[in-house]
């Protein structure tokens, strides 16, 4: 216990440390902590992955979502993986409800070949008011080799082929249309939809043969199926190993083969501006090795027929072009009467569409308006001020002179906490949220608790007749263990909370843990040396009434009148 003899030196070192932390804050050049969304307003979307994805898949999904969000023109959006199944998108400062659709879009992209096409809206006409009716003219789309075609006659000619490509579906509109009025949220289909159980199996038949001669069960399902109202996504189960009956946005229904190429086999998709080869906007596709082989096979089978293949995104046909050539190099181009925005949108969907995992369909969405954020910030600060003030007042009244030590310790702890919060928000990306502030305030109690335990110990020791100097040292030894045990428990609680809590509650746990550590630092290297140092002064060691350690304050009576009233004389 060399430290006990040099309280002054410990104090100096402690204050140097404090000054150092503020020096770092000054170096960082940021004097306020980063506020959480609930304190500055903004949008938070939390996606929950289905099943148990591994870290690499989550990270990939995170990147895709991030590029989607950034692609929609939002500055400073943060997309983070939390725990082992959450992806959290935070957009500070802005209420962007429309982004929810962009983010939560499942976007599982598959290429299938089309067996049959029919008008699917007969049963369900667009009766729902308010839902926008998509463009009526069917947009042709063709797939050509992206290299210069050898034969000019093979160049795409709109309207010449019997293609049923759709305009892109609603969620694709995000890049161009920020109002995002359409909703692709799966809603109950008005018609019986094929479920995986009754979806027919192809019995291992090659999809390209099956395409020309679909089995009866599939045909039956196809006959029964009716598309939902235009603008709504069909409610189907997109199982890659089974044929699929679904619709495009114009109410055409398709009987599709099992999945031939997965979205993950598409290595890139980009917009192609009009040039000498084609006067329209198009989308360039590039497949990876596997995809290239498969696509070559499809193109051989489909070339010079009126058969189509379909690009299916989340169970909805987004495009069903025919083949204009045999494509063996894995580079294809989709053309049609695309506007620039439409082409962009399709390209982004294709490029970013392929999420490696699927998320639960109902993400948690929080939008915090700036008014509420302001209120919450001021409420948090008010609560902190009231709490801190009352604790200080209580300690001052009860402990008098020693109360000053409590106040100084609390102030020092507050200063240290602030410095660390600022540094952590700069360095480790910690954001101060409302639960975080609550954690810090609750921690005021924990911090003050250790002082109470210490001081009560000192008083107990003095009641046994020890002098203050001795009482401080022997009280310290005993109080120290109690405090270590108690702080270990609250640290344990904070740690468990941090690991198992979801979302904003993590902020509470972090703040609680941080303040507990700070409590220990302040308690060991500030409060204890401070009290030891004060014990040298006559005011304290003599038991002056103001010191809080007088015989009266301790309640020690020199004479022991047994008949004193129960409460004694105040």
């Amino acid at each position: 216990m060399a430290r006990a003899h040099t309280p002054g030196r410990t104090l100096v070192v402690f204050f140097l440390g404090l000054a150092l932390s503020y020096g770092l804050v000054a170096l960082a050049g940021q004097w306020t902590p980063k506020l959480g969304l609930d304190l500055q307003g903004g949008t938070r979307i939390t996606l929950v992955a289905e099943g148990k994805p591994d870290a690499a898949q989550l990270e990939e999904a995170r990147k895709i979502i991030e590029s989607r969000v950034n692609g929609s023109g939002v500055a400073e959006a943060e997309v983070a993986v939390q725990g082992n199944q959450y992806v959290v998108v935070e957009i500070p400062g802005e209420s962007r409800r429309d982004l929810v659709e962009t983010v939560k879009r499942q976007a599982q992209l598959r290429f299938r070949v089309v067996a049959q096409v029919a008008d699917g809206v007969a049963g369900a006409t667009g009766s729902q008011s308010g839902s926008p009716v998509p463009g009526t003219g069917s947009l042709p789309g063709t797939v050509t080799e992206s290299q210069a075609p050898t034969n000019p006659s093979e160049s795409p000619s709109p309207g010449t082929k019997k293609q049923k490509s759709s305009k892109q579906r609603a969620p694709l509109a995000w890049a161009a249309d920020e109002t995002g009025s359409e909703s692709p949220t799966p809603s109950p289909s008005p018609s019986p939809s094929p479920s995986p159980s009754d979806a027919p199996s192809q019995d291992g038949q090659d999809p390209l043969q099956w395409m020309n001669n679909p089995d009866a069960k599939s045909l039956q399902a196809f006959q029964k199926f009716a598309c939902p109202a235009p603008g709504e996504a069909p409610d189907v189960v997109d199982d890659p190993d089974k044929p699929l009956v679904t619709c495009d946005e114009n109410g055409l229904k398709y009987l599709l083969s099992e999945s031939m190429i997965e979205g993950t086999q598409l290595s890139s998709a980009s917009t192609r501006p009009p040039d000498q080869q084609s006067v329209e906007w198009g989308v360039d596709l590039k497949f990876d090795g596997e995809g290239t082989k498969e696509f070559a096979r499809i193109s051989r089978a489909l070339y010079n027929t009126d058969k189509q293949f379909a690009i299916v995104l989340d169970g909805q046909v987004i495009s069903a072009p025919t083949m204009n050539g045999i494509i063996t190099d894995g580079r294809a181009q989709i053309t049609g009467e695309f506007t620039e925005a439409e082409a962009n949108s399709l390209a982004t969907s294709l490029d970013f569409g392929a999420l490696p995992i699927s998320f639960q369909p109902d993400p948690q969405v929080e939008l915090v308006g700036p008014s509420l954020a302001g209120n919450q910030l001021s409420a948090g600060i008010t609560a902190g001020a009231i709490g801190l003030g009352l604790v200080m007042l209580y300690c001052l009244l009860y402990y008098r002179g020693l109360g000053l030590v409590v106040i100084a310790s609390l102030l020092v702890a507050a200063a240290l906490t602030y410095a660390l919060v600022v540094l952590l928000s700069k360095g480790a990306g910690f954001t101060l949220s409302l639960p975080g502030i609550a954690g810090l305030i609750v921690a005021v109690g924990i911090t003050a608790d250790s002082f109470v335990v210490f001081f009560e110990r000192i008083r107990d020791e003095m009641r046994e007749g020890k002098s203050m100097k001795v009482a401080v040292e022997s009280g310290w030894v005993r109080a120290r263990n109690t405090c270590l045990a108690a702080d270990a428990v609250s640290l344990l609680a904070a740690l468990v909370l941090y690991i198992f809590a979801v979302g904003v509650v993590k902020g509470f746990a972090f703040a609680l843990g941080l303040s507990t550590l700070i409590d220990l630092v302040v308690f060991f290297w500030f409060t204890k040396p401070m009290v030891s140092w004060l014990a040298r002064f006559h005011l304290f060691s003599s038991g002056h009434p103001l010191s809080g350690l007088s015989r009266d304050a301790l309640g020690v009576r020199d004479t022991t009148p047994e008949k004193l009233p129960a409460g004694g004389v105040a």
Partner: protein
Amino acid sequence: MGAFSRLGNDLYTGRRSIDFVGRRWLWYATSALIVAVAVLGMTTKGFNMGIEFTGGAEYRVTLPASQVNQDTADEVRQAVAGTGVEGATSPVVTTSGEEAILVQTEPLNDHESKEVVDALLATTGASAGDISQTEIGPSWGREVAERSLIGLAVFLVLVVLFIWAYFREWKMSVAAMVALAHDVLITVGVYALSGFEVTPATVTGVLTILGFSLYDTVVVFDKVRENTAELRKTKMTYAESANLAVNQTLVRSINTSLVALIPVAAILYVGAVQLGSGSLKDLALALFVGMAAGAYSSIFIATPLLVHMKQNEPDIALTERRAAARRREAAADRYAHVGGARADATPPPDPRTGATPRPPKAPVAPPRKPEAVGKGRVVPKAHAPLQKSGAAGRVQPVRKPRSQRGKKK
């Protein structure tokens, strides 16, 4: 404060003592009653789960205080129901705190949500920045609940390990765990009975209580352990010294609990009054109830229970018997232990009258058992188990030849 201090001193020295341990059946009964009511509330009334658990959409409109009243809430309810949106036909509209109106509906999609927001804006005249929305799917709530339960289980296991490692005694661990369960049950019961909304913040609060409740118990048990370590020297029974420990830490317990409760009360006040419902209020309420229950249980439940369990240990039972014997002896002969004052001593004659005063009527001690007279190898019955002599620990002087003195071995 003086009176409180004096009380503290009296409690410390044992001059005044509140019999926490002796009246344990009273405390057990009180707690059993409270817990029974809590459990009854849980089973019959159930919980008012927040939308984080049930799924749904919540809109919070921040308005000037003058506008936040029941009339506005009614208007808003009609307006939202009038939108014709399917999930919002019967919205729950309440005022929340001084400056907000809260609208809860079933989960809505983007388009429907926009309609509701438009209706809200039109009715209240607020701007878009005044509206906050939370939308939560039911699966999210299940997720949160599941993880909270896992967290609770892991924490309990860790806590059991911690207590066991710290106290090195399973009986203390059990007592602390019972106190813990007591606090959590009461807190949860308060939620069930009062119908306050249960949100993830509440669950966090409950998990935090576990830590705090333990904190109190650690402080009290520390003192119990300290006091009972030297039972033989103090000539007290385990129950007595445990009770003294509780009395000695009473002032400290009250102080630490108050100091911990003050900030929580501040959060509760601000959260409930300024913000209305919200994570701040939920967290603070759970903490407040739990901490108060924790302070109570560590004094009234944990310690008596510990003593209760320890009573049957042979060591403890022995000290108890010895203390009882000592008490009987003392009751029989109050001056038995006063040196020099023997009951049969004849007082000196009064110098003035010369008369010999009549000896006072001495209390009669119960007949003593026949003792060994000292002949032969009759070992007297031990009054107490044999202890090491006080000198055993010290280095004793050894007689050595001069040449070897001052050398080690």
